[in-house]
C-alpha cells in the first residue's frame, strides 16, 4: 500500500511536469501567435481583419491551394516510389538493398534545400543535364515551379514511406499471405487483398509524415519554387518584406498550416484506428509488464499516453510538433530566424525519425511508441 502511494506521487509529479512543459513551451507561445493573428496591425485591437484578408484575397488562397497541391502530389509520388522499394527490399533478396536503404536515409538527413539545389545544378537554366539534352536537340521542361518542388520533395521524402512500410512488411504474419495463395489467389491478388490492408496503418502513417513535411517545407519552394508561392514561403515573405512586414498575417498563415496538419492527423488517426489489426495480428507479441515499467513511468515525449498507439502514430506527432509549433513559436518572438529554424527543424525531425525507426524495427511492434498524444490522459496507465 505504502509503495502504491509513492508510485502515485511520482505519477502526479510527472503529470504535473508534463503539463507545465506543454503550457510553458507550447500553449503559451502558440497563444502568442494566435493573438497576433487576431490583432489589428495599427490599433492593436481585436479584429478578424487578417482572416478576412486571407480568405478574401486570391493571392493568399492561391498559395494555400499551391501548398495543398504540392503536399498531395508529393505524398502520391512518394508512395509510388516508396511502396515498391519497401516491398522489394523486404521480400526479395536484392544485392545492395541495405546500401539502398542507407542511401535513402542519408537523403532524408540532408537539408531540403540541398536536394533542391542539386536539381537546379542538373536541370536549372544552365544545368549540365539540360545542356546535355539540348545539345542533342531535346528541350526539357523548366524545373522551376510546382514540378521542381514536387520532384525534389518526393525524392527527399519517399524514405519515410519505404522505411515505415518495410518495418511493417517484415513483421506481418507470413502465413496470412500463404493462406491467401493456398486459397487460390495469385501474388498480385494476395498483395492487394491481404498484404496491403495489413500494412495500411504504416502506409498512412508514412504518408501523413510526407504530407506534413511537404506542406511545411520551406527550403525546396524557396530555392526551386520560383514565383510559385506556397504557405511557408508566403509566411516568410510576410515577415521579411521591407515594404510592410506583417506578423499578424504571417501568424494567420502559420495557424492555417497548423489547422491543415491537425485535420490530416485526425483523419489518419481515424483511418488507422478503424484498421488497427496490423499491430493486432493473431500471433502478436505480448507486451510484458516489468517491475521497472510498473513502478516508474518511462518519460516518453512530453506527455504520457495511456493507450498504446500505433508506432507510426506516435512518431509523426513529435515531428509535427517540432515542425509546426517550433518555428511557429519562434516566429512570434524572433521573426528573422524563420528560415534557419525551418531548416534546422526539418533536419532534427529527420534524424529523430531515423533513430526512432531504427529502434522500432529492432524492437518490433507492440511496444509503446514514445510520442505525444493530443488526447493525453491526466492519469497514467496502470
Amino acid at each position: 500500500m505504502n509503495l502504491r502511494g509513492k508510485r502515485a506521487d511520482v505519477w502526479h509529479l510527472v503529470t504535473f511536469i508534463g503539463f507545465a512543459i506543454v503550457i510553458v513551451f507550447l500553449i503559451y507561445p502558440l497563444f502568442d501567435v494566435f493573438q497576433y493573428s487576431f490583432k489589428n496591425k495599427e490599433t492593436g485591437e481585436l479584429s478578424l481583419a487578417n482572416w478576412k484578408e486571407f480568405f478574401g484575397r486570391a493571392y493568399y488562397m492561391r498559395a494555400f491551394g499551391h501548398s495543398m497541391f504540392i503536399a498531395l502530389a508529393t505524398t502520391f509520388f512518394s508512395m509510388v516510389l516508396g511502396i515498391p522499394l519497401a516491398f522489394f527490399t523486404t521480400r526479395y533478396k536484392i544485392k545492395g538493398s541495405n546500401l539502398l536503404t542507407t542511401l535513402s536515409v542519408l537523403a532524408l538527413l540532408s537539408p531540403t534545400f540541398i536536394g533542391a539545389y542539386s536539381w537546379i545544378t542538373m536541370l536549372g537554366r544552365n544545368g549540365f543535364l539540360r545542356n546535355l539534352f539540348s545539345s542533342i536537340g531535346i528541350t526539357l521542361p523548366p524545373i522551376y515551379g510546382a514540378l521542381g518542388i514536387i520532384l525534389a520533395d518526393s525524392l527527399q521524402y519517399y524514405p519515410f514511406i519505404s522505411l515505415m512500410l518495410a518495418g511493417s512488411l517484415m513483421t506481418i504474419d507470413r502465413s496470412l499471405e500463404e493462406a491467401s495463395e493456398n486459397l487460390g489467389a495469385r501474388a498480385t491478388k494476395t498483395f492487394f487483398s491481404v498484404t496491403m490492408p495489413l500494412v495500411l496503418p504504416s502506409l498512412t502513417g508514412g504518408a501523413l509524415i510526407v504530407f506534413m513535411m511537404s506542406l511545411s517545407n520551406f527550403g525546396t519552394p524557396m530555392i526551386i519554387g520560383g514565383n510559385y508561392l506556397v504557405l511557408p514561403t508566403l509566411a516568410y515573405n510576410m515577415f521579411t518584406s521591407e515594404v510592410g512586414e506583417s506578423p499578424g498575417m504571417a501568424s494567420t498563415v502559420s495557424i492555417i498550416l497548423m489547422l491543415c496538419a491537425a485535420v490530416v492527423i485526425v483523419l489518419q488517426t481515424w483511418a488507422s484506428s478503424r484498421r488497427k489489426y496490423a499491430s493486432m495480428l493473431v500471433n502478436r507479441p505480448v507486451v510484458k509488464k516489468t517491475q521497472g515499467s510498473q513502478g516508474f513511468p518511462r518519460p516518453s515525449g512530453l506527455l504520457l499516453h495511456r493507450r498504446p498507439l500505433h508506432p507510426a502514430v506516435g512518431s509523426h506527432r513529435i515531428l509535427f510538433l517540432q515542425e509546426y509549433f517550433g518555428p511557429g513559436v519562434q516566429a512570434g518572438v524572433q521573426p528573422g530566424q524563420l528560415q534557419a529554424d525551418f531548416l534546422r527543424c526539418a533536419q532534427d525531425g529527420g534524424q529523430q525519425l531515423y533513430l526512432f525507426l531504427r529502434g522500432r524495427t529492432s524492437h518490433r511492434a507492440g511496444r509503446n511508441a514514445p510520442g505525444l498524444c493530443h488526447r493525453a490522459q491526466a492519469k497514467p496507465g496502470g
Partner: protein
Amino acid sequence: MTSIKITGVEKRFGELLALSDINLAIEKGEFFTLLGPSGCGKTTLLRTIAGFYRQDKGDIWLGGELINDVPAYLRNTGMVFQNYAVFPHMTVYENVAYGLKVRKLPAQEIEKRVKGALRNVHLEGYEARTPDKLSGGQQQRVGLARAMAIEPRVLLFDEPLSNLDAKLRVEMRDEIRAVQKALGITAVYVTHDQEEALVISDRIAVVNFGKIQQVGPPWEIYKNPVNLFVATFVGKINALDVVLGEDLGSGLRRAQAGSLRFAVPSAGTEGCSDAVLAFRPEEVVETADAAGVNRLSGTLVSTAFLGTVVSMELELGGSTIVIERHRPKKGDIPATGNRVEFAVPPESCFIFDKRTGARLRAEEGR
C-alpha cells in the same frame, strides 16, 4: 484410389537435407499423419505438397495429376495453419468466402458454401464477427471452414492444434476427424504429438532426419516399431543396452545387461551381439503371472499416480526403468525405497541392432 502419390522426393535448404527419398501413397479419404520431432522435415513435406516449396528431386501427383510445376494457387489444396492465419481485416464470413470469391463463383453458390462450411465447424451465427472477437479454438474453426469451403482435393493440416489448450485440443481433434470422415476428403496432418497422431489417424508416417522411418496404422506403429527411433518416439519405452548371448532354445536367446539377465526372442538376431532391449512400461506383469523367465526386482525411486495407471520408476542394475500398473488397488503402491518385483514376458521384448537401430525380428513379421 490413390489421392496423393509422392515418389523419390528430395529437398535441400542449402547444405541441409530436409527431405530425402520420400515415397508415399495416400489413399482417397484417408486421414494420413506425418509424425516426428521438430525439424524432422514433416512440415517441409506438407509445404511441398501445398506448393510453397519446390522439391529438388522426385515427383508429386495429386489425384493422378503431376503437380511438380503447378503453382500453389492452382493446386486446390486447403491448408490449416498452426497460427490459424485467419485474415484479421475480414469478418468470419469474408474469411470463409475468400477462396470462393477468388474462384469467381456466383454469389448464391458462395453463400451456400460458406453457410455449409460454417455449419460443419459449428460457427453458425458468427458470420459478422471479426477474428479479434474470437477465441483461439474459434479462429482455428474459421481456418478449417475456409479450407473446406473451396472443396479442396486434399486438406493439409500444419500442427493445427498446438496453439490450443489441452482440453480444446482433444475436442478439436475429434471434430476435425469427424468432419473429415463426413466429407470424405483426404487429409494430411502434421503433428509432433504422438498421442494426437495415434487417435486421429488412419495411417501414420513417422519421420525423422528427413526420412520416413515407418508407415502404418497406429496399432502397427505402436506395437510393431521397425526401429529404435519409432519405438522411443511413439509411446513410452524402456531401453537397455544388452549383449546377446547363448541360445536358450524354444526361440529364445540370452540377453545380458550388466548383472541383469533376460531371455529374448532370438528370431532375426543371428550374427548380432551388441543390441538394445526395449519394452513398454505397460507390458510388465506380476511375478505370479510370469512363467518363471525375466523376473526382475528393482528399488522404487518414485511413483506417479495418474488415476487409471500408477507409473513407477525403478532403479535396477544401474539403469532406471519405468513400469506401469493398471487399475491400481489400495496397497498396490509401495513406499519409495522398497523392492518391487515384476516380470517382462519375452514376447514383449523388442530387440534392436545397437549400431543401426533397426529392429531384429522374424522375417514374416515385416
